[in-house]
């Protein structure tokens, strides 16, 4: 890390930063003896400690000297202000990592901490070993969130609990429930982090320097993605991407960091499958203190099988939607679909698991999901898991029953996806469980913000042949994912078109047979389509189809202008509301990007990121397959015969 003036002069003569030595910590606890002990321990770790026993005072100090602290540790039970509230405020306004400390270790509290954005949750009495490693939260955040703080803060409404949904690498931003999966993830991410560090001076720069944050808007991300596509995923290097993007004000480092996130996202999606258990998904920082129990999702995530399968599943899941379990999400999903087309998928709570994913702060606004006229965006609340809170979509989910039927099949997948269904975006790409995890983590977004899961469900409609131009679009692979700008539920816009398409792709894909069956109940036509899809789906598993899908996705990506490139990890870490979208790019799963209304910009982008990252490859294949299929028979046709049905009904 480079020494910055911010770092309080703990720099050696040679200018090297001695981080974590000298890290500036603010400790808050109303209990005097606990505070003193904490202070002593932190000093022992060679951090620079400031203490106060009043939360209000702490806030003032933080606000005054925004850049003078790196980390905050706060007790949960305080008389003048609730620790969670403090946590939220700090996370929102200041985007600092916050660690909760409490004598209570019950799952609910831990979960609450995560959903409110805590990076970690420690039990009292704090132990030296634990405190020694808290610096990781600072690094993580720095590494993965190069955003302009102010902008970020403005744009992103407090995403409570975003901490929960840490993005992949940083998955630990949120308190991790104890659970191997999380640890694994954390390890993975940490490894990745290390790798990137080694690889890149760029990374070094990123992590060590405090650059003005760049906000990855939807447009920006769109350019980024298109540049990446143009170059070819493997060949995409930051410099070239930067050149292609031709945007002022961003540096190669910004691009590099964004690329890394993107890659991780994709990887996560592809790895998602392996993380069958949600438990693994520990959005929270590795402290692992959080018992995985806190994440109900545990099981869910796990389900995500291999990307390929996921893809299929994803699709199906999307279709299948996500398990009714997802109640939260599914409803949201359905809700999203409300507008238009009855996205068959809509209702499907993208992640059955979502439900499980409590973490899902996912605030799936599902209700809001505005389904594109064309695309019937199914804002699937993929984030289901997360959506715990936000899933407003539940309301949307009118007929949970029906949906549930569906989703059941898909459950597996949905979970992953659940995370982010931001309306139109269907990011499902391969949703690798990882993705979900990530998304889930994201969902940890501040619970306050329900992210509308615009499920890609819209896509479903399309695929369903909802007659919208989707088909043609689909074929063309021009999946224009309208960047969800509409985040909360309003995904309706034209963006949704894209979304739908993507969704379609997914849907088709997803149509995995499992869900298909369910759908049949609902949509006879769908059956037909399903069969078609099945084929496609089959393809998908073959991995070939995935490609096509990816194409579609890819294309859509291009269109997406991610608002805020909220890398999931960053989301997770920052607990910032932007945790958004972490839409799992589960192609199949209509991972709608759940974008919380507030954070829309961010969410979208995130989702976009996610989506695209996820199984990008698979999408391409998928797309191809679909295209091929399509030629043979119209997929999106009205054969699907899905008339727009109210979202709720679908589900």
């Amino acid at each position: 890390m480079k020494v910055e003036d911010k770092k309080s002069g703990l720099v050696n003569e040679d200018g090297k930063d001695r981080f974590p030595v000298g890290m500036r910590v603010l400790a808050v606890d109303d209990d005097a003896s606990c505070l003193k002990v904490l202070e002593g321990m932190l000093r022992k770790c060679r951090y620079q400690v400031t203490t106060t026993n009043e939360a209000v005072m702490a806030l003032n100090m933080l606000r005054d000297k925004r850049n003078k602290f790196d980390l905050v540790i706060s007790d949960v039970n305080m008389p003048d202000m609730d620790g969670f509230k403090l946590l939220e405020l700090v996370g929102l306004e200041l985007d600092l990592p916050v660690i909760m400390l409490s004598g209570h270790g019950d799952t609910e509290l831990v979960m609450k901490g995560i959903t409110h954005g805590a990076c970690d949750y420690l039990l009292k009495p704090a132990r030296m070993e634990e405190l020694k490693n808290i610096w990781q939260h600072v690094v993580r955040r720095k590494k993965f969130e190069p955003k302009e703080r102010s902008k970020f803060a403005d744009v992103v409404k407090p995403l409570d609990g975003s901490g929960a949904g840490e993005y992949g690498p940083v998955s630990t931003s949120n308190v991790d429930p104890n659970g191997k999966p999380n640890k694994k993830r954390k390890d993975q991410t940490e490894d990745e982090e290390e790798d990137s560090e080694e690889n890149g001076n760029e990374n070094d720069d990123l992590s060590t320097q405090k650059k003005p944050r760049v906000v990855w808007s939807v447009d920006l991300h769109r350019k980024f993605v298109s540049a990446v596509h143009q170059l070819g995923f493997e060949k995409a290097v930051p410099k070239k991407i930067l050149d292609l993007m031709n945007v002022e004000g961003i540096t190669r480092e910004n691009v590099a960091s964004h690329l890394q996130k993107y890659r991780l996202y994709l990887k996560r999606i592809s790895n998602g499958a392996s993380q069958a258990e949600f438990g693994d998904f520990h959005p929270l920082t590795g402290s692992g203190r959080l018992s995985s129990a806190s994440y109900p999702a545990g099981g869910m995530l796990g389900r995500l099988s291999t990307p390929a399968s996921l893809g299929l599943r994803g699709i199906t899941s999307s279709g299948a939607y996500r398990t009714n379990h997802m109640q939260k999400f599914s409803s949201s999903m359905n809700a999203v679909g409300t507008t238009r087309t009855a996205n068959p998928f809509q209702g499907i709570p993208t992640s059955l698991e979502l439900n499980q994913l409590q973490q899902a702060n996912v605030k799936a606004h599902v209700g809001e999901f505005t389904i594109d006229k064309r695309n019937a965006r199914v804002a699937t609340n993929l984030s289901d898991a997360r959506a715990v809170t936000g899933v407003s979509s539940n309301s949307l989910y009118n007929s949970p029953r029906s949906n549930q039927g569906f989703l059941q099949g898909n459950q597996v997948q949905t979970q992953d996806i659940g995370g982010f269904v931001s309306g139109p975006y269907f990011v499902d790409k391969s949703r690798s469980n990882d993705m979900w995890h990530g998304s889930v983590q994201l969902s940890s977004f501040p619970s306050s913000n329900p992210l509308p899961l615009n499920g890609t469900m819209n896509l479903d409609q399309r695929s369903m042949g909802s007659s919208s131009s989707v088909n043609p679009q689909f074929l063309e692979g021009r999946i224009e994912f309208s960047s969800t700008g509409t985040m909360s539920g309003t995904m309706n816009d034209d963006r949704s078109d894209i979304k739908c398409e993507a969704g379609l792709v997914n849907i088709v894909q997803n149509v995995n047979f499992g869900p298909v069956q369910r759908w049949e109940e609902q949509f006879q036509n769908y059956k037909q389509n399903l069969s078609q899809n099945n084929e496609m789906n089959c393809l998908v598993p073959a991995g070939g189809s995935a490609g096509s899908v990816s194409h579609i996705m890819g294309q859509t990506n291009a269109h997406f202008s991610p608002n805020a490139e909220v890398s999931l990890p960053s989301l997770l870490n920052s607990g910032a509301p932007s945790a958004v979208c972490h839409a799992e790019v589960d192609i199949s799963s209509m991972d709608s990007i759940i974008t919380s209304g507030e954070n829309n910009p961010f969410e979208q982008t995130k989702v976009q990121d996610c989506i695209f990252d996820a199984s990008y490859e698979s999408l391409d294949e998928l797309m191809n397959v679909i295209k091929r299929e399509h030629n043979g028979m119209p997929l999106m046709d009205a054969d699907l015969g899905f008339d727009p049905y109210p979202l709720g009904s679908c589900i």
Partner: protein
Amino acid sequence: MERNNQLHRQVALMRQSLFDQGYLDEQFVQLEELQDDTNPNFVEEVVTLYYRDSARLVASIEQALDNRPLDFNRLDSYMHQFKGSSSSIGGRKVKAECSQFREYCRTGNGEGCIRTFQQVKREYATLRKKLEAYFQLARQAGPRDTASRST
């Protein structure tokens, strides 16, 4: 010299017995480890703060126990704080009694609460007395190289 050594030995013995008898636990050792030349009286300072907080909490609890009907939530909350403080200095027995008290609160057992609280107070008083004696002796023995700790 001899006397000094003897005193130090006594201090060590007293300390060890506090652990053996279960009054203190590992956390106390952590506190001791934080004590060094820059913080020579760290442990004692922390413990002093503990006394102060605890006195306040005990008084609050007592008052709450006088009210009828018993407000278990409030009682639980106080006790949670007290437990937290006690655990941060390593007061093992006190902590155990606090847990017991909270369990009674959880089940709404007023009688149990009152009874347990007496035990809490008793353990707290005992611990306090022992620690005070310990610190006093330690002060008397004077500064010396910290003996190897045996926990």
